């Protein structure tokens, strides 16, 4: 699917940016006109940057031009890209999973309904298996119809062991059983799928906290990674999702999915202004191979449509 889609003609954000900002060469000397600024804002807003992040960027450009630091379109392009890269990057290697000091490494996956949690688990499992890990899956979404069967199908395809919960069962108990199974089997990584939940549903957020707590009691230091999955088409609600999941389970990073569509995932820029959550992986399709390790510079270029 990815191949079909990369052939699409996504109008380059940068080319549009350039056109509106630089059609009037004089703008570089006099600074931007109000209409140019609105047009620029538009480009950023339509990529889901949100008002605050957009204003930041536009002000930075205005300032740079006024002070003569940005002299031509290349300067401006570089400035936007650099700024975005700065905003999005984090010191640690996004692709490196934090390992347990002893015993299996536990990865907890959480997020709103339908964002791509289960599929992302299949992707992560394949990646880690290729790195030589012995992965065990835990189907702790005991709520949604067919959720366990979905992860079981993936386990089957990937040839991985799985511990499944019964419909309506306690997800914390499934997680607990999975850790026990991992110990006896000698698995090195356990990835736990959880039911989708809206960040506003307190009861369900408490349930998630309980899963994390039970894991922590069974294996000190676990979960070693808690990854929050965010749908790349989501708008400014990404900020709320990020905040509330952060309060509940302190995620160690984000997986942003569905970036194979037209959405650019610009709302992560808005989210980054609020939270230090590092972006770790990107989902770019429905197959187990459609996972990329996050690269801030490339993501910034994609956001601007340069990629």
């Amino acid at each position: 699917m990815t191949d079909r889609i990369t052939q699409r003609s996504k109008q380059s954000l940068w080319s549009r940016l350039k056109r509106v900002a630089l059609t009037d060469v004089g703008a570089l000397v006099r600074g931007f006109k109000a209409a140019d600024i609105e047009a620029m804002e538009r480009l950023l807003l339509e990529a889901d940057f949100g008002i605050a992040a957009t204003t930041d960027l536009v002000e930075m450009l205005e300032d740079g031009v006024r002070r003569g630091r940005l002299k031509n379109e290349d300067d401006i392009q570089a400035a936007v890209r650099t700024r975005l890269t700065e905003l999005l990057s984090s010191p640690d290697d996004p692709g490196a999973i934090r390992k347990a000091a002893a015993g299996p490494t536990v990865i907890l996956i959480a997020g709103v309904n339908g964002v791509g949690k289960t599929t992302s688990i299949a992707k992560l499992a394949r990646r880690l298996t290729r790195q030589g890990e012995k992965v065990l899956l835990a189907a702790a979404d005991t709520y949604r119809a067919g959720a366990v069967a979905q992860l079981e199908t993936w386990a089957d395809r990937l040839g991985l062991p799985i511990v499944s919960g019964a419909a309506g069962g306690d997800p914390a108990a499934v997680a607990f059983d999975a850790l026990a199974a991992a110990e006896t089997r000698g698995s090195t990584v356990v990835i736990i799928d959880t039911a989708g939940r809206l960040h506003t549903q307190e009861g369900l957020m408490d349930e998630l906290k309980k899963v994390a707590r039970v894991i922590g009691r069974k294996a000190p230091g676990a979960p070693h990674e808690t990854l929050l999955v965010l749908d790349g088409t989501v708008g400014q609600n990404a900020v709320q999702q990020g905040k509330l999941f952060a309060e509940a389970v302190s995620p160690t990073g984000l997986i942003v999915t569905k970036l194979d569509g037209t959405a650019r995932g610009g709302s992560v820029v808005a989210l980054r202004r609020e939270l230090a959550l590092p972006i770790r992986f990107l989902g770019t399709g429905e197959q187990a191979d459609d996972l990329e390790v996050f690269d801030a510079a490339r993501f910034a270029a994609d956001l601007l449509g340069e990629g």
Partner: protein
Amino acid sequence: MFDELSSKLSGALQRLTGRGVLSEDAVREGLREIRRILLEADVSFDLTRQFLERVQEKAVGQQIIKSVRPGQQLVKIVYDELVAMLGETQSPIAHASVPPTVILLVGLQGSGKTTTAGKLAKRLKLEQKAPFLVAADVYRPAAAEQLETLGKQVDVGVHREDGQQDVVALVKRGIEAAGRARARTVLVDTAGRLQIDEEMMRELTRLKAAVAPHEILLVADGMTGQDAVRIAQGFHDALGITGVILTKMDGDARGGAALSIYGVTKAPIKYVGVGERLEALEPFHPERMAGRILQQGDVLTLVEKAQATVDEKEAERLAKKATSKKGLDLQDFLGAMKQMQKLGPLKNVLGMLPGVNSQMLKNANVDDQKLKHVEAIVLSMTKAERADPDLMNGSRRMRVAKGAGRTVQEVNQLLSQFKQMQKVMKGAGKPGAKLPFGPRFPGR
């Protein structure tokens, strides 16, 4: 839903309210705030601009209505435009004159199609439309299992074929199976797909050509950002969608996608998903939604209606009297009540008042029947009794009850409610109050 958008917008307009005049500056300031609010709510950039232009055009230079505060006048304009932007009428599923009615559910991955199929099946079953489900998502692992489980939960037949890749043939057989099961509505749950995935979109156009569905409903995530426009456009261009269902609206998403999707497709939003349970599907009401956005209730519609029907002078007299020492008497009470009746069913009137939400109305249990009983009781009193309800001793109460054909308990209840209302009115009725009656009509 829309709660956050609501509170922000009413915050912005609050500042405009009570400034005395609807000046161009005030309008511009208000619009700037509204622009910010709409964009933060994920309303598409283009729609936001169009919206502001329309509002500005209508607001500036419009004659100020004396009896309405300027801020409210702007709220009213904003509100009307919002309603228009959301689609003006509430629109049910169109059923075929000759069954079965075939409904395709389409949308992006993870937008909530399968759950929505289950919810719709439940609703259609209650409406005795004999629904049947067809699992046409042959790609996502366990999608058919999910639909089958939901089918069992609502006790509706499900057609699934494992290992089948030819979706068109599968759905055709599904419709046949539905016919054999004597179903009258067929809900086809299709696989999620990106609108730019040409091959997958061709599958849908082939499906449409083969089964001629009566409805093609776009199921869209209510949290979608600016991409909502492109998604809606893509599906609409390929298929000509006939309606929209917005999901996950029980969260705190501001729901601007609703405005964007309707703006692009002009296909009515038929339902909103407000939870994971199968009952959590509600008909979409644009007015209610817009009123909620403004968090003003439909207060201005009420003002408008009231102005059209209530005799202004009478209203003023009542308002004055309500705040006077003596307060309203039962005669005035009856007058006010009659005016309210002119305004339409009581529930509608109450629903328009700010701060009254549907939950409260559920508990309030006001019905027009009840109002008729109240009227009968008041009319059975003498003029003197209406003017001074304290006259109402036991035997008088008995007489009135008999005359009205109601029980004495009901008379007692009315009198005590009236006393309560009198108290409330004295406190609440500040000068300039729009309506001569209290914020809540005594129910039961």
